[in-house]
């Protein structure tokens, strides 16, 4: 029972009895570090489950304040948190949930200037952003540093999820070489979203992150999972690495993070 307090034995008992986790796995989680980028609809369940699971350090990056239209799906935040920085609102809830976890917050946008510094030191990155520029930026930064990235996006009743293990499976650019444009990429504000869609996909991301940290199970590396909540179907699309991928292909054009590769016009964010 080395390394566990009596309270920890009780708090994590439902993990410890799982053959795939046990005490060793729980100790691994307690010494792991995960970075969640975005504390919104996806980030809320991700943060809750990682902190509840006892991931030792959970970093949260988000520049926004809590708005009224967030509360329909961003379950980390409450009515009393309106206008508060999302990272502060998140930290308050998460520290109450599990004092074993260090919650580190970064109230800043993810940019080409800071992305490498943000992800440094973390074992896994979870992409919960709402724009394509940040999505490509995180993909490239994680591929260049060999860091696992748990990816998901949601709109209306639909969601996509994949796990990117650099060198083992395709990256985001292998599957989506270019961001969609114009009417192909409406925001949640324009097109709407069922709050529970974000909850389902965020929960999938949390499970993937924990599996990656523990090295158990089969992740969504090489598989794109498409979820249709209206029909309640889960469809898998298998995909390999693209040899011509500009970041993880055989002759990559992107070998460092440069601002011109991430067009902010593609990433208008709305609450």
């Amino acid at each position, binding site marked *: *029972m080395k390394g566990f307090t009596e309270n920890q034995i009780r708090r994590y008992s439902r993990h410890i009895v799982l053959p795939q986790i046990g005490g060793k796995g729980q100790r691994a989680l307690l010494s792991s570090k995960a970075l969640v980028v975005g504390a919104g609809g996806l980030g809320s369940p991700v943060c809750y489950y990682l902190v509840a699971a006892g991931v030792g350090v959970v970093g949260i990056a988000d520049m926004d304040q809590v708005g009224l239209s967030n509360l329909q799906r961003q379950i980390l935040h409450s009515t009393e948190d309106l206008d508060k920085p999302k990272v502060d609102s998140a930290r308050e809830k998460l520290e109450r949930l599990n004092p074993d976890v260090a919650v580190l917050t970064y109230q800043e946008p993810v940019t080409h200037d800071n992305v490498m510094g943000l992800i440094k030191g973390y074992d896994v990155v979870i992409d919960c952003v709402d724009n394509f520029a940040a999505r490509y930026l995180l993909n490239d930064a994680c591929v260049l540093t060999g860091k696992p990235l748990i990816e998901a996006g949601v709109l209306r009743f639909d969601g996509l999820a994949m796990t990117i293990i650099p060198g083992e499976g395709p990256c985001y650019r292998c599957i989506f070489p270019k961001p969609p444009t114009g009417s192909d990429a409406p925001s949640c504000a324009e097109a709407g979203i069922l709050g529970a869609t974000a909850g389902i996909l965020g929960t999938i991301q949390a499970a993937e992150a924990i599996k990656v940290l523990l090295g158990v199970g089969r992740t969504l590396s090489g598989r794109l999972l498409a979820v249709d909540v209206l029909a309640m179907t889960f469809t898998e699309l298998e995909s390999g690495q693209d040899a011509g991928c500009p970041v993880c292909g055989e002759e990559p054009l992107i070998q460092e993070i440069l601002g011109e590769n991430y067009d902010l016009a593609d990433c208008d964010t709305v609450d």
Partner: protein
Amino acid sequence: MHQRVAGRGKGCHMVAGPGKTETTVLDLRGEVCPYAFVKTRLTLEDMEQGSILKVIVDYRPASASVPKNIRTMGDTVVSVTRLPGPAWEIIIKRTG
């Protein structure tokens, strides 16, 4: 050799006789399910293959659930013996 580990129940210590395999004793009297199993598993995880753990429980459901769950983890339940009290002595060989 004698070692105690803090915790609910009466704790954990190791005993060994000359020429005998070292046995770890885990006294879980006062502990209930699922924590009797949780603590048994945590103790087993730190033990070498082939070593022996003697667990004592006084919670009747644990006398059945601990052996059942230990078997699913791949360790070997050597015996379950009822003691006065009542209590139960569960002998486990680390094989998982």
